[in-house]
């Protein structure tokens, strides 16, 4: 069967509908069958509908995503309670160690994202990986940071990513490779994204899964959970009311 690819982190300017549509069209052209765009916390459903329509036009599947940027662990818990049932993917932008730890151990978090380039401001170590592996949270790597940096900053990032990817593999934490693109010139084909991961020693099967199987599994799992007939993993309502007789 032909492999399907997903880019879970397109970051167009949502106020610019034309640019958003161009990026979605480009994703379809590059061979993606599913894209996710982080939505704002206000008017989430309005933006989601608009994006869903644009994706339908481009013949790609759309997954709603929310990037939570809490300052404290308590704030993260509050936001998770508020938004978990509203979107298909919840990603946490980990800017502090406390937030990173709380996000890694919470089953409601799908993706952990570490945007900082400074190694001291990235918190994906063995303890974090162990928590994440128990809660099924995935570790996301944005390719945009990797391709835009130059010189010593890029070397430092590659060295950190090499260590983090090895830790993720050791603790069986799923890795998701996304574009993180803010315009269409930062978007790459799925095989190109997989090729870029060789810079931090990710083997080819893992790299391909990071742009196809892992993100698609996350979306599938969450769609099942958001289905009104879902009761628990593996249990769903088949019939109710008069249908049971």
């Amino acid at each position: 069967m032909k492999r399907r690819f997903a880019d879970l982190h397109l970051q167009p300017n949502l106020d610019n509908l034309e640019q958003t549509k161009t990026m979605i069209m480009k994703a379809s052209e590059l061979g993606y069958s599913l894209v996710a765009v982080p939505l704002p916390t206000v008017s989430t459903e309005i933006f989601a509908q608009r994006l869903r329509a644009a994706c339908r036009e481009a013949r790609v599947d759309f997954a709603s995503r929310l990037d939570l940027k809490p300052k404290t662990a308590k704030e993260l818990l509050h936001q998770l309670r508020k938004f978990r049932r509203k979107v298909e993917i919840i990603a946490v932008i980990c800017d502090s160690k406390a937030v990173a730890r709380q996000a890694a151990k919470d089953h409601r978090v799908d993706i952990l994202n570490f945007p900082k380039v400074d190694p001291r401001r990235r918190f994906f170590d063995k303890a974090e990986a162990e928590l994440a592996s128990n809660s099924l949270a995935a570790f996301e790597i944005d390719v945009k940071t990797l391709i835009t940096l130059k010189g010593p900053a890029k070397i430092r990032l590659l060295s950190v990513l090499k260590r983090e990817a090895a830790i993720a593999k050791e603790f069986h934490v799923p890795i998701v490779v996304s574009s993180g693109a803010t315009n269409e010139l930062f978007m790459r084909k799925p095989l190109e994204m997989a090729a870029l991961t060789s810079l931090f020693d990710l083997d080819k099967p893992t790299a391909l899964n990071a742009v196809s199987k892992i993100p698609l599994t996350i979306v599938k799992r969450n769609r099942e959970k958001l289905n009104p007939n879902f009761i628990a993993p593996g249990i769903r309502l088949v019939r109710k009311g008069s249908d049971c007789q």
Partner: protein
Amino acid sequence: MKAKVRRRYLALKIDSNEKFDSKEFIDTVWNTLLRLYGEYGASKAGLTLIDYDVEKGLAVIRAAHTEVEKVRTAIASITEINAKPVAMHVLTISGTLKTLRRKLRATT
């Protein structure tokens, strides 16, 4: 007896609002390859520009078959040519120019 050198031909699409000549293009690919893999790594790639269409933004390059993934990585890393924003995509890869052109015709 000297073993036959196996090569791969890569068709590339240059995505940009600007136009670049062939020298600017191949220099950028070489420089990116050099920056990522060093002189030794770049020397193994056996990179050669075969064909370049400025108007369509299409290029065909040749590389050693063992180094195709490195070349693909280098091409994906390119974000600008002469400080002008650009993206490059590998359209197709083939072992001979004849099949490459056939594949290209089929995709376009």
